[in-house]
């Protein structure tokens, strides 16, 4: 593979504590190396910022609910799908872009890795087919476990070893990456038309509580020593006053120790925390509790979060939190899709318009940004929009602008219809903090890579790491006075190199790259009880057989498998 030398750029690499120093980056055979020969292609990054490829820890970009969103929202493509293009494939859609647009847009923003945040195990073949159809970016997918009949039964009986053996089996057959938990117990309760809105609400039939599920899955995660921590979408998402249950859930991580060989320090990743940091007892008294939640996150070192920032766009909500989607469709009266995934999970899809002239939407916008601005440790606080739930991922550059510029925040705040009411219900107006490029690199690159246990490959520019490099039109010595220039720079990288190959040049896609599917294969000792339970459930309860359940190798033709033995 060709050699590349990136010269004269301002390198920002938190993994090596490099903050804007002018150094060269050498690339050979898809990796960062010490030096390259004189025939290497030279890219002059003079006056520009050089960062590692971005790492998105939570985004819904592949699988059945994304596709249901595409099918039920043809209007999402209207006037947003250009006619044929010269060098690459047709792109379409906005909040639920086509697979090709997904790959291209992430690449244009300089992102190298994206985690599909919720894979229903039964539908994992579909997830992998779409991942395969998404060019350029490396991807992995988190199967959902928080409402699995197996998991609920094992954890009810405190059988962590059996739960671990089941999860190890499932990660292998679905080519999954780690343990995702969505509304633990609540999505299972939805099959009875119920929900679990507190940590002690019993799950119907299984007689286990969300608190027990969360604790059990954290223990199972560390028993297996997976690269990523347990990744949770908490109970009672999106409701006024939910910050108390959020804090209660976060406290479950106290005293849980990490055990892994992937450099991860955390045991819980609490995702789209913006949706879980609400005060008040109705939409009328709705207010920000960002400070209360972030005060706890800042001092509790073994948890990480991502923001889930509201971007004030028309978007499509989709989640395995089935009861929540039913709640939304009753609020906005828009079309609703709902499904039950046999023994595993549920899901729903509803369009949603975040309107800057609606007070609650303005407050939600403020809360997401406040959480980023209150963060004491940007290595545990990551930028996301819970794409597409709070807004499309293509708005990350706008969120970066808001986090880096008080002026930009004030301008947006002033454009609201209810500016004063939003100021009264939040703290954003009084917050002067402006994040640095170094902190942004921690929140979008080094931090998420470490929390995912992928710090040896992604998130930095050290020798031996994957050669994922973004070059952005920002001069650290002369940062633009106009915050719009920050958004523009991060929206279209000057250059993006992925796995050592030039993908973007002057903001345009020039190659489809070599994407990979990353999955985790923990080898556990054979567990006859679990093998029998699996056979039993496939005979009695599933509509498919165990032989048709597995994701065949041809569906993930470019695998990168993280295989290791679990010490009992």
């Amino acid at each position: 593979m060709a050699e590349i030398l990136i010269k004269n750029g301002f390198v920002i690499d938190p993994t090596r504590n490099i903050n804007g120093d002018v150094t060269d980056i050498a690339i050979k055979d898809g990796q960062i190396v010490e030096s390259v020969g004189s025939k290497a292609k030279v890219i002059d990054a003079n006056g520009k910022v050089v960062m590692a490829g971005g790492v998105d820890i939570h985004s819904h970009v592949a699988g059945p609910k994304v596709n249901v969103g595409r099918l039920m929202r043809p209007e999402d493509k209207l006037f947003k799908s250009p006619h044929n293009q010269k060098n690459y494939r047709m792109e379409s859609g906005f909040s639920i872009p086509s697979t090709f647009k997904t790959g291209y847009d992430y690449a244009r923003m300089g992102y190298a890795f994206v985690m599909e945040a919720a894979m229903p195990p039964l539908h994992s073949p579909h997830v992998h087919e779409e991942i395969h159809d998404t060019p350029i970016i490396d991807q992995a997918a988190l199967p959902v476990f928080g409402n699995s009949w197996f998991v609920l039964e094992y954890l009810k009986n405190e059988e962590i070893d059996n739960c671990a053996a089941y999860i190890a089996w499932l990660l292998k057959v679905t080519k999954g990456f780690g343990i995702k938990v969505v509304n633990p117990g609540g999505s299972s309760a939805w099959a009875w038309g119920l929900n679990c809105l507190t940590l002690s609400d019993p799950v119907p039939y299984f007689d286990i509580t969300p608190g027990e599920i969360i604790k059990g899955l954290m223990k199972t995660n560390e028993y297996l020593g997976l690269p990523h921590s347990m990744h949770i979408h908490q109970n009672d998402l999106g409701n006024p006053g939910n910050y108390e249950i959020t804090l209660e859930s976060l406290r479950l991580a106290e005293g849980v120790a990490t055990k892994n060989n992937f450099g991860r320090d955390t045991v819980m990743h609490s995702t789209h925390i913006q949706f879980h940091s609400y005060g008040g007892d109705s939409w009328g008294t709705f207010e920000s509790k960002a400070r209360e939640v972030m005060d706890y996150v800042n001092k509790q070192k073994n948890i990480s979060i991502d923001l889930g920032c509201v971007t004030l766009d028309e978007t499509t909500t989709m989640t395995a939190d089935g009861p929540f989607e039913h709640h939304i469709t009753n609020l906005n009266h828009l079309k609703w899709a709902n499904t039950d995934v046999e023994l595993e999970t549920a899901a729903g899809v509803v369009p949603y318009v975040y309107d800057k002239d609606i007070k609650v939407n303005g407050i939600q916008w403020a809360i997401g940004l406040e959480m980023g601005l209150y963060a004491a440790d940007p290595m545990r606080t990551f930028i996301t929009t819970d794409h597409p739930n709070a807004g499309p991922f293509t708005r990350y550059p706008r969120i970066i602008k808001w986090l880096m510029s008080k002026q930009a925040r004030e301008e947006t705040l002033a454009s609201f219809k209810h500016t004063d009411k939003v100021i009264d219900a939040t703290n954003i107006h009084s917050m002067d903090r402006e994040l640095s490029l170094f902190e942004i690199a921690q929140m979008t690159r080094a931090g998420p890579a470490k929390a995912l246990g992928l710090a040896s490959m992604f998130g930095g520019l050290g020798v031996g790491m994957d050669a994922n490099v973004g070059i952005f039109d920002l001069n650290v010595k002369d940062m633009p006075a106009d915050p719009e220039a920050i958004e523009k720079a991060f929206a279209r990288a000057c250059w993006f190199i992925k796995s050592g190959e030039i993908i973007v040049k002057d903001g345009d896609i020039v190659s489809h790259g070599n994407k990979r599917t990353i999955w985790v294969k923990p080898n556990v000792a054979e567990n006859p009880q679990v093998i029998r339970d699996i056979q039993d459930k496939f005979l009695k309860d599933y509509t498919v057989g165990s032989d048709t359940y597995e994701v065949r190798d041809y569906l993930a033709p470019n695998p990168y498998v993280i295989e290791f033995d679990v010490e009992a």
Partner: protein
Amino acid sequence: MAQITLKPTKVPELYLECYNITPDAFAGKSLRQIAELDAHEGKTKVTLGDYFEISGQSGNTAQETTINIDGDCSRIKYIGNKMTAGSITINGNADMYVGGWMKGGKIHVMGNVDSFCGIAMEGGEIVVEGDAQNHVGCAYRGDWRGMRGGTIRIKGSAGNDIGTFMLGGTIIIEKDAFIHVSTHAEGGTVIIKGNVQGRVGGQMVKGDIYVLGSVQYMLPGFKKVGSVEQKIDGTEASFTHYIGDLGERHPKSKGKEVYANLYVQEA
């Protein structure tokens, strides 16, 4: 008022998408610049000059620009797409999407139009001397935000799905209509001066429908509440008043539920 005349010179092999035939796109442009405007035939990009002989002069603004199409547009879509002002006269038939997403100005079609005439229209006026196919003044597929304003008058008859998800404005069909009128509507007025077969007002939340002929099959979700005398589009008559769709949600105004109204002329 300055006028541009377009004379079709050849029939496109595929359907031609002429989203740039609008007073907005033509205003302030020379004949040569107008001839260079994009159009699409299938996936192939072409120019207006490839299919039309262009003469006359454009105005400085859309408001001051009149477009006269001298010939048949049966294979031409998107005439007047998103236009905000000025006027277009089509001396013949037109294909789909005449006046789609239109915000202002006037379109006059001397012949018939195909489907999606006035789709998601926000303002202005469309008059069709002949018949319309389906989806007059409907919403884009999937969208819950249909026609918001303006007037569509079809002097002939129309097909199915008239005013789907309508929020405002007026649609007048002077002869008969087929099925599905104002489905899911939350506002606006549809007047059908002839007969309609059925499925009138299905899942309708708010808005008005007048039928001056007969409704062959009434939906069970509509309830007769009385009789009213009214003058509608120049016709004075007594109507039977129905409210509905009783199977759909209805907003409250001043403590009372608001229903959609269906008025059918008494025989």
